[in-house]
């Protein structure tokens, strides 16, 4: 019997090998061998201080930010020009005396206008003292301390001018609080991208304030879709009474946002608390489901009115228990956008995300590359890596994940595609890498 079973099994396996794999390959559009690309990484820039984001022009010119220094550009011939620094910085062509860095905050996202070749316009996200007014006396006030600026870049790429602040009222955390990572300047989001139609998308964070994500007037914990002057996209559809600049709300700390090449759909990568980093397909007016306010969702009072790490916020605990207490995607919201992926319940620090473009990426073309910065606490493995995630067409799930074979692990902070179809990656240690994929076809 054992022998018969073995023969039968062999026969089934042989059939699968002959027919099954062949059919599967055809169904995937890969007749014959799969095109698994050869992936390599090389250092483009090093010795930087917390490089946070990059943005490209078609000729390979790369703008980049350093969180506590400012905005610089690496020209197509490799020359680096320091353009616009924070207060107290040196070596920059100009300085914003209102710009500063503190803990997680500083000079963060950068992106050029889609008509940059004609108008030379560049957008920059930073923390600023300029619009605080008297609203920052405690952590429980509005405190407008993150802004989006618009600049004109000179033809020689040596300076910027005509600064116009197009968003001046993104909230900021001014003081320490009784939370993990409770320093001032927490959770700013900060990634900027230009989406389909040329509108500017601004990713935000909850700045450790419980009421932020679900409040319709505060911009903390939101994703904005605006025009080049900072006005709301006319088709934004937030709930009644909300600020019209809001595309989605209910976010914790969005550091990654990109648009799927096949349909233009926006996806965010969001850093979880002690559980559940998430990727989410955005829906116009939708709710990502983060609500760390106290006295809601069956919770009582929380330290400094923020339940984002509760319960037992500074102790070890099963992530699933925390996830039930203050969920990243709370199902009590009828307008919830469910996550496409949730990192197996862990929080390891999702940073940036970029769709892989170009047939040089072979079977990975169209996947979402997601940078995981890595933090090990309470039994969670650190997990620094870049995942390549295949998303389902409806964006509500994944087909699979492949870890990018880089051969090293670092805190992968910023990911963006270059015009050469290479993935550019900044790491907190101070490098910007160029990750290339070579098709094996």
């Amino acid at each position, binding site marked *: 019997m054992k022998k018969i079973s073995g023969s039968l099994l062999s026969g089934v396996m042989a059939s699968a090998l002959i027919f099954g794999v062949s059919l599967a390959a055809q169904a995937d559009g890969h007749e014959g061998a799969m095109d698994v690309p050869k992936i390599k990484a090389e250092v483009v820039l090093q010795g930087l201080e*917390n490089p946070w984001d990059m943005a490209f022009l078609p000729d390979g010119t790369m703008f980049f930010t350093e969180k506590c220094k400012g905005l610089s550009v690496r020209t197509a011939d490799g020359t680096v020009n320091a353009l616009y620094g924070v207060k107290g910085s040196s070596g920059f062509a100009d300085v914003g005396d209102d710009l500063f860095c503190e803990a997680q905050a500083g000079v963060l996202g950068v992106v050029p206008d889609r008509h940059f070749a004609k108008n030379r316009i560049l957008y920059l996200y930073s923390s600023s003292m300029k619009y605080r007014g008297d609203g920052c006396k405690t952590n429980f006030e509005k405190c407008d301390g993150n802004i989006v600026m618009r600049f004109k870049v000179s033809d020689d790429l040596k300076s910027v001018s005509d600064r116009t602040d197009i968003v001046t009222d993104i909230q900021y955390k001014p003081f320490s609080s009784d939370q993990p990572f409770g320093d001032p300047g927490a959770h700013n989001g900060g990634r900027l991208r230009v989406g389909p139609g040329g509108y500017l998308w601004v990713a935000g964070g909850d700045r450790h304030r419980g009421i932020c994500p679900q409040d319709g007037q505060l911009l903390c914990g939101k994703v904005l879709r605006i025009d080049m002057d900072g006005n709301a996209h006319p088709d934004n559809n937030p709930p009644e009474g909300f600020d019209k600049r809001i595309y989605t709300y209910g976010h914790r700390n969005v550091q990654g946002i990109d648009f799927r090449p096949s349909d233009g759909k926006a996806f965010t990568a969001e850093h979880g608390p002690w559980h559940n980093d998430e990727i989410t397909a955005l829906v116009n007016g939708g709710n990502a489901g983060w609500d760390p306010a106290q006295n809601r969702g069956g919770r009582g009072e929380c330290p400094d009115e923020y339940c984002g790490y509760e319960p037992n916020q500074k102790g070890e605990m099963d992530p699933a228990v925390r996830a039930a207490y203050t969920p990243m995607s709370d199902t009590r919201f009828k307008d919830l956008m469910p996550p496409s992926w949730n990192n197996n319940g862990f929080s390891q620090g999702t940073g940036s995300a970029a769709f892989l473009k170009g047939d040089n990426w072979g079977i990975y073309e169209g996947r979402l590359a997601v940078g995981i910065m890595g933090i*090990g606490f309470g039994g969670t493995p650190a997990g620094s890596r870049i995942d390549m995630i295949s998303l389902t067409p409806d964006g509500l799930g994944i087909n699979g994940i492949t870890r990018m074979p880089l051969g*090293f692990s670092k*805190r992968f902070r910023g990911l963006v595609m270059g015009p050469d179809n290479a993935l550019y990656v900044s790491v907190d240690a101070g490098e910007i890498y160029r990750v290339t994929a070579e098709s094996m076809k």
Partner: protein
Amino acid sequence: MLRFSSTLLVLTALISPHTAYSADKALGETRYKETCINCHGPAGKGAASFPKISGKEISYTTAKLEAYRKGIEQGSNSFLMIPMAKPLTDEEIANLAAYLKDAKYVVE
């Protein structure tokens, strides 16, 4: 009395783990890469919310780690450091302090 005190000091020094053990930087680097690197970055240069810890005097790093190991809070993120320091032996603390004093980041 003076002679007795001197003898006691010498004996104390001889049995003290800090003086009896000769710190090994290489072992310190190996231990650093097991856990510390995940937050403090390569060669203790610091990253994001996590401070730079390289270039400090051996006595400073040793005192910090020993305090964390005892469960003493030293700043807002002590809750992260205390469980990391709990399992460290005296030798591991000495090795880490020695490694971090001169650790230099080199891109590999």
